[in-house]
């Protein structure tokens, strides 16, 4: 048996060595570890001698490059580099001209859009008002698969789906005046910011002379959608190696001037790899914004790395504990809200890099009302409410937890514990994300954790209205319908702010669900990069052509 002992000893020594090496470096982030990175670690930074190539880390792969159909944020982000939009949005709800020189209205119903002169597609064709009109027509064409239907649905002649009415073959609300001018007309007057964001900022203008080569119904699966040949924005498409990287190169005809960084590689890596790539210089920046996310557990390591710039900002990414309103009435829901210690979640899991949601907006939104305070953690109040409600608290409640987001999975245990302290009887049921989402969507759940990326426009009809397709909480409430309707149709920003303040207060008091937290956005990038993502993530790319590397 001597040999067995020797063997055991050998294994222990070997394991010990590996653990020692790993543990040693992990703890001392700001001393030897980064010291080493400074020197030899740089060797494999592939850009060592190429200062005109940008490497971006993404944690999700793009779902194609179709300017008309892009449900995922990654594709939307890359499309912004490939196709022009009428407007830029450097800060939330502050708009600047982009392809459009001006975007004006006198009556909040007729919007005159004047395009800048001399803009060209990468193949030299001019970008004209016809391209804009054709893009809107494609979106409205019932044969075309598109994610932007709702965006343009306020235009005259379109149904609420954004498709034109039966028998029509064009959009009544779009009129081309000349090569550089067109007029957009809405069904009723709207808040200019609404149309500026929904159409001006979100809709990518597609090249008519390319798109019209395909049958509208075939666009979504065509080369137009997967390997675009003509671009009109900062970069043009070179190659996509599925789930691995996207390669872009500067568009020499870009109307704001050719980009300084001539090549861009967007690498698809998982969260852990993103951290090592940032440390080793394999990527210059994380894409942030929910699509290039570093794990919360690694935030301290990155923040202490001498080679990296690290900042965090409130963003639009949120996590909710959706409550099936068909199963729980307002008192029980409010009891849940009181029971959950959201402060502990934010402190323990995010080390402060997240905010508690008072209701359904994050502090990044200009419609967020700081006077509507979040309901505090109060177990006694929760118990009281639960008793008053007459809810049978011995009843088992299933908490649906999707996998794939570590912080969310960990929060589930805290939530379960909190709810049990208040007298609920909770069991966790874990599914992969797609299954969890499908169950929640079908109303086949009681309470469940789901993340929702919010928009800068405050309209949340899709989430809390009975007609909303993402009405996961199955809300059916007349007052919220009325408030959503008022907010959506109001044309004045101040008036909207008042309406949405009321909505936030009402939403909180009714506890239609529990807004758990809003994850902060991280900006993590090499100190060598001048540029990168901004506090308002969605507008980060407006000056991308000026980014440089030292």
């Amino acid at each position, binding site marked *: 048996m001597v040999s067995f002992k020797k063997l055991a000893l050998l294994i222990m020594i070997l394991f010990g060595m590996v653990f020692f090496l790993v543990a040693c470096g992990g703890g001392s982030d700001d001393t030897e570890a980064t010291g080493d990175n400074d020197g030899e670690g740089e060797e494999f930074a592939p*850009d060592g001698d190429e200062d005109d190539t940008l490497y971006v880390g993404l944690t999700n792969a793009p779902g194609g490059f179709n300017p008309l159909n892009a449900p995922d944020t990654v594709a939307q982000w890359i499309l912004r580099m490939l196709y022009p939009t009428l407007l830029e949005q450097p800060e939330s709800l502050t708009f600047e001209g982009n392809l459009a020189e001006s975007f004006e209205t006198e009556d909040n119903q007729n919007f005159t859009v004047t395009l800048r002169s001399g803009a060209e597609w990468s193949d030299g064709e001019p970008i004209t008002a016809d391209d804009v009109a054709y893009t809107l027509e494609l979106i409205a064409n019932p044969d075309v698969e598109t994610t932007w239907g709702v965006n343009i649905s306020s235009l005259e002649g379109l149904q609420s789906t954004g498709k034109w009415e039966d028998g029509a073959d064009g959009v009544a609300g779009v009129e081309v005046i000349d090569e550089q001018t067109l007029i957009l007309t809405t069904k009723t007057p709207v808040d200019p910011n609404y149309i500026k964001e929904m159409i001006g900022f979100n809709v990518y203008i597609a090249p008519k002379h390319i798109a019209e080569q395909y049958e509208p119904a075939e666009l979504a699966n065509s080369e137009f*959608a997967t390997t675009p040949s003509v671009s009109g924005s900062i970069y043009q498409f070179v190659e996509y190696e599925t789930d691995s990287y996207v390669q872009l190169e500067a568009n020499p005809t870009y109307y704001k001037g050719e980009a300084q960084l001539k090549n861009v590689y967007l690498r698809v890596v998982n969260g852990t790899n993103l951290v090592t790539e940032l440390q080793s210089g394999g990527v210059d920046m994380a894409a942030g914004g929910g699509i290039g996310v570093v794990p919360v557990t690694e935030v301290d390591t990155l923040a202490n790395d001498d080679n990296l710039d690290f900042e965090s900002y409130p963003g639009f990414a949120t996590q909710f504990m959706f409550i099936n309103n068909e199963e729980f009435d307002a008192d029980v829901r409010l009891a849940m809200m009181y029971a959950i210690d959201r402060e502990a979640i934010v402190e323990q899991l995010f080390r402060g890099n997240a905010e508690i949601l008072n209701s359904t907006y994050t502090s990044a939104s200009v419609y967020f009302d700081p006077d509507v305070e979040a309901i505090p953690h109060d177990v006694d109040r929760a118990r009281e409410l639960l008793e008053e409600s007459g809810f049978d608290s011995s009843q088992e409640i299933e908490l649906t937890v999707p996998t794939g987001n570590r912080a969310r999975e960990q929060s589930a245990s805290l939530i379960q514990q909190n709810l049990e302290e208040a007298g609920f009887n909770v069991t966790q049921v874990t599914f992969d994300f*797609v299954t969890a*989402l499908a169950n929640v*969507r079908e109303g086949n759940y009681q309470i469940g954790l789901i993340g929702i*990326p919010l928009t800068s426009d405050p309209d949340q009809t899709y989430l809390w209205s009975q007609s909303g397709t993402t009405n996961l909480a199955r809300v059916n409430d007349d007052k919220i319908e009325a408030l959503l309707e008022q907010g959506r149709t109001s044309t004045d920003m101040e008036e909207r702010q008042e309406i949405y303040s009321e909505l936030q207060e009402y939403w909180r008091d009714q506890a239609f669900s529990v807004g758990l937290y809003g994850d902060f956005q991280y900006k993590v990038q090499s100190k060598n990069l001048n540029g990168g993502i901004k506090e308002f993530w969605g507008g980060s790319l407006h000056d991308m052509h000026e980014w440089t590397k030292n």
Partner: protein
Amino acid sequence: MGKYIVKRILITIPVLLMVTVFCFIIVNLAPGDPTDLYISENATEQQIAQMRASLGLDQPFPVQYFKWLLNLIQGNLGFSFASRMPVVDVLPSKIWATVTLMFSTLVVSYLIAIPLGIISARKQNGFVDNMITGVSFLGISIPNFFFGLALIYIFGLQLGILPTGGMETLGGNGGWLDRIQHLVLPTIVLAAFYCSNMIRYVRASMIDIFSENYMRTATAKGLKEKLILWGHGVRNAWVPIITVISTDIPKMLGGAIVTEQIFQWPGIGQWMISAINARDYPVLMAINLIAAVSVLFFNLIADLLYAAVDPRIRY
């Protein structure tokens, strides 16, 4: 022999059909609606229905299957739900990446494992044998995600002498040296397992053979040790070794899932995981099909090789 091969290939066809039916059922039985992933939060019912139709999910299940099969016969594996690219266009680069990694792993593993296994068997229970079995035990039991991350940490981050992931330096000039550097770490991680596994097989079968009567006879005849070992010993060990190799190859073709994930290796394994998460049915079916074909193919090759190395086996 020729007749045998034809017969085997003919048997393969119904087997493959069964496999595709089962895979199709299992893939489609997975809970969750792929449509949910490819619409935006504010999509209307009409858009959802349109998306479902465009993915072909509005058809009854058997219709979906026969459409898929009909397309397959024409060499069309459909469109990836996630990227909307034809699956056949993406497949070659994924297979190439996985085959590169697989090939280097198997070559390294077997070059190390077969001699070590023989040595280990010859010096049974000696110090060398204990060392070899000890290390191979470690190689099998160390989780590859841990081993991989440890290697990345040491060679990629601390020493900075090897890349942390990917198949080549993006934007670099490529070149074989660059590719080999990218291959080193994932190959080590995979080879640690395959090599250890093989050592144990070789050792076990050699030990069996050393106690066979014909080995004793050969020794008694006064044959040279080398001849006994290679001519009588190793030759008889080939049958179990071929069996292991023929199961190793398809196992790897199915993708070294964890290792490919850790090293961002753009191969089948990584593709499969993202396809599962994205409920990308056409991609999953294609990967299943390749895995099934390769299992059947390498089993056939193994059977043919048995006959080549062991004259007692005839077809």
